[in-house]
């Protein structure tokens, strides 16, 4: 499985563990609910940790734990749900999160320019054949009117 991170196509070495599934070795991400529930167990295991948040999750809840988290996945249930854009901004701009922020789920390759502007630096597109499109679309514009994260 490949993704884009920092404008490069790379192999993905993370896996998402669903709430009802057993934890496994390696770099894993879990839901915010599981993070709250299993935090101690998660922190005591080997491997890096990530949290997958949906648009209705409150980013502030993660703020105290950000040092322990290497990946935050913004999961789009629907490309029209723009809350993820503000979540990314808050993670970078308010809580100064420096780890990977990855867009996943049902977003459009035509949204990656904006996502990169609010601090998303990794993209797991819905279709693997979209990887080169994402790379190209990251450069849709060379000018901008607003300050943001990027």
């Amino acid at each position, binding site marked *: 499985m490949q993704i884009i991170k920092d404008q490069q196509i790379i192999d993905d070495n993370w896996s998402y563990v669903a709430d009802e599934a057993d934890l496994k070795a390696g770099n894993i991400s879990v839901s915010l609910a599981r993070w709250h529930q299993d935090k101690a167990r998660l922190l005591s295991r080997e491997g890096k940790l990530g949290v997958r948040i949906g648009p209705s999750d409150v980013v502030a809840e993660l703020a105290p734990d950000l040092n322990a988290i290497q990946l935050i996945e913004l999961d789009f249930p629907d*490309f*029209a*749900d*723009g*809350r993820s*854009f*503000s979540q990314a*901004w808050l993670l970078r*701009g*308010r809580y100064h999160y420096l780890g990977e922020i990855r867009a996943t789920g049902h977003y*459009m390759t*035509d*949204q990656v*320019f*904006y*996502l990169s*502007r*609010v601090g998303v630096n990794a993209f797991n597109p819905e279709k693997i054949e979209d990887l080169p499109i994402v790379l190209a679309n990251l450069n*849709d*514009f*060379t*000018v*901008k*009117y*607003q*300050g*943001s994260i990027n």
Partner: protein
Amino acid sequence: MITGHDYSPERPIKRSSMYQYNDNDQILVDERVAQFRRQTEQYLKGEISEDQYRALRLRNGLYVQIHAPMLRIAGPYGLFNSRQLRKLAHIARTYDKNYCHFTTRQNVQFNWPKLEEVPDILEELASVQMHAIQTSGNCMRNTTSDHLAGVCIDEIEDPRPYCEIIRQWTTLHPEFDYLPRKFKIAVSGALHDRAATQFHDVGLHLVKNDAGETGFKVIVGGGLGRTPVIGQVIKPYLEKKHLLSYLEAILRIYNLFGRRDNKYKARIKILVKESGLDKFSALVEQEWQLIRDGNELSNERINAMKAQFVDPAYETDAVLDTGFSEQQQENKAFATWVKHNTATHKIPGYHAVFLSLKAPDSPPGDMTDTQLDAVADLADQYSFGEIRSTHRQNLILADVKQADLFALWQQLDSLKLATPNIGTVTDMICCPGLDFCSLANAGSIGVAKEINEALDDMDYIHDIGDLKINMSGCMNGCAHQSVGHIGILGVDKKGTEWYQITLGGSSENKAAIGERLGPAVAKNQVTKAVTTILAVYVKNRLNDESFLDMVNRVGITPFKEQVYANN
């Protein structure tokens, strides 16, 4: 045919000051055209889904309507130059059916473009510093303003520099392009609110504080449409330097907390209403405190923008002309037109001239390519090459010398743009209705025409005076019927068109939402209802009492009794 970029120097005429694109502005619109061309090609090849392309095309002004796509082009706070008007004429001729439509948000619509040609149209527009970015879709829309900005006599400060600052900030804002619903900002700089600021998601009103400094009164949560709401003051005085950080705070709270479960409850007005203003403003305040420092508009930035809007080269002796008053005495028709279709200008000897797009036999707000070209020439000849659109769907030449008014009037008259009905009962706001719009439940243009035909006596119209009729073909309320002095709303009842009538609405300083007169009336009864309402007014008014004042004094009962007398 694409004419390409026109960087050639303007023709040697004195220009009104309007914001001129710098290289970055031009690159941005060019890159946007390239992006949309690619998106459209991908869609036509089946590589982008219908759903996704819909979101993308809407953000480029492209709707799909009953007969054809409709393309909405931004009129930034209502300002156009003559070159842009000629480009609109060219687009109307080349890509459409020789006309376009001016909207209530100072924009321009084409009703017959071909989808596959829209990227070409956008490229044409970019060549004259125009675009259709964010003129639809759930994002921040074109910023609107006072159509008399910079020339009116009651101005606290010219709002246009701030409109342009907001235009740039809202354009391609990466965080706020997928909002719960559309978001509209209006700015007024005058005592008299001509920009309906209380009926916008955010209304900004330039005001002075006790120290005599100018800042913004910020109004939030107003809106028309299905649930008309008068906005509430969230910040009585905001220093100018905080304009963008405060807007950012409002937008972030809205983006995070606005409802997304029901599109009819997704506007910020519902969030403000359901949270209560106190709680909503506390959230905004908390957010704003965290971002306001380090995010300020500098004086340099404000002053540089103000320098884009300096006065044109007015002639100081314009007021000395004596022909103007003689012409009015000699020609009653001219005098009538001057009285109704011009506004007082801050410079003695100049007038702002309204071009009525409400000629009796023409759909409200429509203009042909021939008219567009001719008005461009008139703007060059008489008004520093600038044209404005108003939220009542008329145009303005804002800076005409009184010595030129007679010649201008004659030419406007031959173009059918001099109907002396500005602000009167036949100066109706009207949406395209069932004839063009896929959302509409009922026709509006035909009804407007019928009302117009019934009111063919100009003296009677002038006797009635200031009366605003707004008519929409559906609940979405594009023609702002809920703030019309008389509002007419088309509804569908089992496949037939019916019309609800409201009285007493206003979008001006004393904002009000019209009260429903009674049951909806059938299509063939609308004109009769309107003429009956007018007769009740004429019979019962006190002295110089306006229609709106009378409705406020007596309520709707006397009107209701007459309109429904035979039922």
